[in-house]
């Protein structure tokens, strides 16, 4: 018992080293550039693939192996420097949300580049020459390579400490972390400082990836897995704190290892599979830390951060007569569509309606509410699974299950939102991501109840709604109605109170508005609408899986739709959702590399139209009116 505890401790420390390498780079980059680099996981993955190819070419000798790992890390550092010079350098002044999106777009591009260069097969690398065996520790065998890994973490921590505290460059990095403007004012060339820090961060991520080569195969999903882990470590440790990243990596590495070690336990007559809790455990740690100590274990307190508004928003104007007539004509045309076609167009239109509601609900939260969610898919998924399980497991009629979908999602949003409204800015965005990952992990791992990764099949609508035109009209009525309701709310006192809390929490409090409570209510409303979209989605597809409803990429889709249309417009999300869904359908059928195309499109959007399409159109027409 005791010996297995020690072994699990060593296992935990070995994975802590890898976690630390990835997280510390992310933390360094954030400290200096204030960019949360979503692409960090992709750089980690790139390091693993590069090491595989380099070692294959150099030969599995000690020199070839370690040379390959060093070469891979350096190659990733070069990629990082190029990314910084070509893209990030242009977006330091744009709001954080756009930076996050741009780096997420890079993730997509890198993923497809890796797919193109290495293919979709898992690649298992060689074991380290000289460290292939295991040693006897506490009466059990323990891999030699993992012992080396345990030593590498603290070694890198020490090297970084020396670099930052004993060199002039390190002093500049520390100074820039504390006060960027001041360092600029002192005449330091910030451009090269930023490039250097980004390259160093990328090097560490690449090294973390390359060192994994004997332990796990190179796979395409590693980017998102690594970035989720790194987010958790950095947030738990405190953004920008290097010792914090180490401490958090050790804590999380150990907790995960103990969860595996405990295995399956009988408690009060029920079996708990702790080994399946690993994914959930780290996010629970993060949620607890964020609520009790929002700045992280070793981070400094941070002021209010705002993510959303790029420019000062204009007051809301009720729709004029022209816009109203246009909306009525448009709705009438949409209602008449089944007369013209019953084919694939209707399927696509149902998707567009569902995602228009999904995007509108996210917009409600991040625009007027000022709370950017990176995990909005959680509520889409809760609605979809709520409806699916009530239909299949509880045997409810389809109509009742669909009505319950928004209620299930609203309940989830009430729980998650209670924590989230206590934070703001990047931390809020990360907590929403964490909750979405928790929801995803539970659905993914709870085979017996949710069907695990296979999901639920046979989620079909009632017979009278089964014909495609009937279901389309149902989706049109429900999505149109819900979007209209969201709009009414925005013009009503509730929506005004939400915007008041975003514009000036101080003033809102001073005129009797309970800002957190209003935001919480906003969270629940947005969750309910996303849940309705999820319910409609489930019955339109007939089957649901964790990846089609709850994955991070779904959340990002919604963000892109909102930003595509423009955060500061009410019609933006609908336009953005329509365009995005249509384009995705078009591109995904035409190429295997739709992710890269999407990523490229996001980058263009962020670099060229930070106000979104509707925002840009409005600015353009405004400029014309003034002429």
């Amino acid at each position, binding site marked *: 018992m005791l010996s297995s505890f020690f072994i699990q401790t060593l296992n935990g420390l070995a994975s802590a080293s890898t976690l630390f390498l990835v997280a510390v780079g992310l933390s360094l980059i954030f400290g200096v550039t204030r960019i949360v680099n979503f692409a960090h996981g992709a750089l980690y993955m790139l390091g693993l693939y590069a090491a595989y190819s380099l070692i294959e070419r150099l030969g599995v000798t000690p020199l070839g192996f370690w040379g390959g790992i060093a070469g891979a890390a350096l190659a990733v550092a070069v990629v990082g420097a190029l990314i910084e010079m070509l893209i990030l350098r242009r977006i330091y002044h744009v709001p954080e949300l756009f930076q996050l999106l741009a780096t997420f777009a890079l993730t997509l591009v890198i993923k497809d580049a890796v797919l193109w260069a290495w293919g979709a097969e898992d690649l298992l690398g060689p074991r380290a020459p000289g460290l292939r065996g295991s040693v006897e520790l506490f009466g059990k065998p323990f891999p030699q390579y993992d012992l080396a890994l345990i030593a590498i973490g603290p070694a890198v921590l020490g090297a970084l400490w020396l670099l930052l505290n004993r060199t002039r460059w390190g002093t500049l990095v520390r100074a820039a972390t504390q006060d960027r403007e001041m360092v600029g004012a002192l005449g330091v060339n910030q451009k090269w400082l930023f490039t250097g820090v980004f390259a160093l961060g990328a090097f560490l991520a690449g090294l973390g990836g390359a060192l994994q080569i004997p332990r796990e195969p190179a796979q395409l999903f590693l980017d998102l897995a690594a970035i989720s882990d790194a987010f958790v470590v950095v947030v738990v440790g405190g953004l920008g704190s290097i010792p914090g990243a180490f401490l958090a990596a050790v804590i999380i590495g150990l907790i995960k290892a103990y969860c595996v070690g405990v295995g399956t336990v009988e408690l009060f007559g029920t079996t708990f599979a702790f080994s399946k809790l690993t994914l959930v455990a780290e996010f629970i740690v993060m949620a607890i830390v964020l609520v009790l100590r929002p700045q992280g274990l070793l981070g400094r307190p941070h002021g209010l951060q705002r993510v959303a508004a790029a420019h*000062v928003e*204009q007051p809301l104007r009720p729709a004029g007569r022209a816009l109203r007539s246009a909306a009525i004509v448009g709705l009438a045309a949409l209602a008449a569509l089944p007369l013209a076609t019953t084919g694939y167009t209707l399927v696509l239109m149902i998707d567009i309606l569902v995602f228009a509601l999904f995007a509108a609900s996210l917009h409600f939260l991040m625009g007027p509410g000022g709370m950017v969610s990176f995990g909005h898919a959680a509520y889409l998924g809760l609605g979809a699974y709520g409806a699916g399980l009530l239909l299949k497991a509880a045997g409810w009629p389809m109509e009742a299950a669909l009505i319950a979908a928004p209620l299930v999602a609203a309940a989830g949003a009430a729980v998650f939102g209670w924590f989230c409204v206590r934070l703001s800015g990047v931390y809020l965005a990360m907590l929403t991501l964490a909750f979405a990952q928790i929801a995803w992990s539970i659905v993914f791992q709870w085979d017996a109840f949710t069907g695990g990764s296979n999901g639920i099949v046979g989620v079909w609508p009632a017979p009278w709604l089964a014909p495609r035109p009937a279901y389309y009209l149902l989706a049109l009525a429900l999505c149109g109605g819900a979007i209209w309701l969201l709009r009414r709310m925005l013009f*009503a*006192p509730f929506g005004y109170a939400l*915007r008041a809390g975003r514009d000036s929490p101080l*003033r809102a*409090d*001073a005129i*009797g*508005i309970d800002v957190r409570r209003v935001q919480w209510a906003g969270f629940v409303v947005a969750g309910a609408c996303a849940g309705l979209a999820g319910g409609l989605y489930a019955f339109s597809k007939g089957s649901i899986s964790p990846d089609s409803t709850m994955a991070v990429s779904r959340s990002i889709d919604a963000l892109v739709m909102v930003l595509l249309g423009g955060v500061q417009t009410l019609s933006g999300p609908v336009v953005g959702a329509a365009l995005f869904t249509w384009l995705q359908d078009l591109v995904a059928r035409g190429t295997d590399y739709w992710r890269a195309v999407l990523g490229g499109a996001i980058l263009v959007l962020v670099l060229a139209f930070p106000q979104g399409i509707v925002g840009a159109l409005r600015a353009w027409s405004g400029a014309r009116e003034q002429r």
Partner: protein
Amino acid sequence: MSAVLVVSRLAKSFGGVHAVREVSFELAAGELLALIGPNGAGKTTCFNMLNGQLAADGGSVRFEGRELLGLAPRAVWRLGVGRTFQITATFASMTVRENVQMALVSHRRRLREWWRPTARLYREEADRLLGRVGMLEQAGRACSVLAYGDLKRVELAVALANEPRLLLMDEPTAGMAPQERIALMALTAEIVRERRIAVLFTEHDMDVVFAHADRIIVLNRGRLIAAGAPAEVRASAQVQQVYLGSRGAH
């Protein structure tokens, strides 16, 4: 004349530094009381304890007999205490009128309504308040495009929306041109006298203080060192020693 606000033995320290020590004073309806003192005297600390933004270490603050300490700012406001900020805080994405309407909607406890458009609620009432502070012509403009002096007027209208019996004004004329300061303070004095609102304000500009305050209290290093009519305070040797020496700076 009974006191609207009774502050007794209010205290606050930050890590061993006594920012406010045993401060006591009273304020009557319709009275303008200026709280002055050199930088670091504890004015803002004192102020933030009164309005609920900062927790006090000890003492009591009674408004119409009810204890304010321990209440959140929004609860203090609900009791009938209005306030303005040193750096104006308004809702930038709303029009001037909507800012006032928002306070009226909150005052009437209709924040939870989610159907009727806000624009139609208490419009005339908002316009009356804006008219009183001379901002009616700009009622339809966005707050984000207003001049700073006009924002101060909007804040005054917002602060009047809940028919307060007590108004807390932190540096009401900070950041304004000298001419505007006199005008804004004259307007404030006129309004609060006609509505018999008690006003506590902090102020750096001694011209404003001596022109409009009914009474003055002076803080230095967290202690109340003088209180009385402007003439008395002006004559106090202690005040001259610790405070008026810095008058030349303004």
